[in-house]
């Protein structure tokens, strides 16, 4: 703290006499008026010089009351020094308390997560979902994002894409793209409903890149060869665009392309026989 008019020794003497001062900025100690407010006059008798920096006195005239009170509060230099030390202590104390609170919060969150476990049954929290969507948005490069489908969606292209989807994708995404299958319902994060805007609003390049490169820490694998431009993937992109308009007949036709185990095939035959009035008695309930 610098003094404009007064020597530190004389200030100390004044303080010992119980005189108080208004500290304004760092440049002036001014005499108080009768109501405890600092004046523009130096606190030492005989010192007629005006403050070196006239604006130092603006502490009183400022339009910020809080700052004005702080600057105009009558304190001795010792009190000012003590106040500074106290302020530093408060800052340190706040920092230490904040760090401890953060550590305690992290510990509690970890305990909460460990208590509930990390199975695929629990739905991801809103924060986890937001982070996953954020990561997905930035997982595709700008160059890939800007790509457009080079294959026009003709009937043949959609047929090829549909059969490919039914054979490779429907196991998790279901034939109509809503994601409700044995595997889709068991995944966490669950596969998105491809018919909805969240997927349909993605660019062709984003859809292509996700199929080719997969999505980390989800059930979506990378199906493509790095750097390759796969025509069959572009046909899948065309078919995904078609999903919101998929007809019931198309969905039914996709079942013929769905992978099926020998057991399921046999079961299907028995069901068909039962439905056609045959005597076959497929297992099921009511039995």
């Amino acid at each position, binding site marked *: 703290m610098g003094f404009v008019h007064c020597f530190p020794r004389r200030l100390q003497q004044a303080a010992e006499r119980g005189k108080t001062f208004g500290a304004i900025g760092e440049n002036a100690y001014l005499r108080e008026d009768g109501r405890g407010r600092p004046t523009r006059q130096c606190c030492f008798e005989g010192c007629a010089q005006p403050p070196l920096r006239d604006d130092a006195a603006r502490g009183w005239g400022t339009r910020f009351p809080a700052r004005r009170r702080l600057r105009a509060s009558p304190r001795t230099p010792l009190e000012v020094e003590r106040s500074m030390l106290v302020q530093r202590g408060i800052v340190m104390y706040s920092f230490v308390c904040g760090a401890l609170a953060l550590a305690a919060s992290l510990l509690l969150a970890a305990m909460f997560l460990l208590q509930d476990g990390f199975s695929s049954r629990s739905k991801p929290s809103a924060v986890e979902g937001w982070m996953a969507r954020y990561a997905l948005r930035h997982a595709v490069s700008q160059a890939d994002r800007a790509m457009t489908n080079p294959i026009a969606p003709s009937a043949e292209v959609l047929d090829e894409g549909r059969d490919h989807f039914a054979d490779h994708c429907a196991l998790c995404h279901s034939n109509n793209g809503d994601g409700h299958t044995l595997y889709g319902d068991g995944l966490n994060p669950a596969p998105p409903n491809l018919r909805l805007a969240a997927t349909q609003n993605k660019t062709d390049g984003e859809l292509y890149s996700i199929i080719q490169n997969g999505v980390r820490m989800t059930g979506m694998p990378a199906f493509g060869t790095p750097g390759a431009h796969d025509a069959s993937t572009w046909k899948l992109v065309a078919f995904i665009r078609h999903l919101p308009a998929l*007809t*019931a007949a198309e969905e*039914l036709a996709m079942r013929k392309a769905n992978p099926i185990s020998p057991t399921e095939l046999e079961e299907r035959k028995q*069901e068909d026989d039962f*439905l056609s009035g045959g005597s076959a008695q*497929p*297992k*099921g309930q009511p039995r």
Partner: protein
Amino acid sequence: MKRTYIALALVLLLLSARSYAHGNMDHVLGTVKQIAGNTISVEKDGQTTEVILTPTTTWENNGKPAKAADLKVGDRVVIHAVKVDGKETAHEVRFAHPGGAR
């Protein structure tokens, strides 16, 4: 020895049920006894099961796409369903009118 055979039979029974499970879906089949709102009652051998229908339930009549309204009392039906809150909820309904009528 008898206990071993019984245990073996139980294990085989469980395995056979699992292999038939069509994923994790139950198979409800029989004849439609009643249709009431979003619930259909299916009867077979005197035992009745109620199945809940949802907007996402898919319908198939003799291998062709169908609608809920196409299902009639007396139709033979095979329903692939999952249990939701203890109630069978239909994922897929396959049915045929008696006598092969379409």
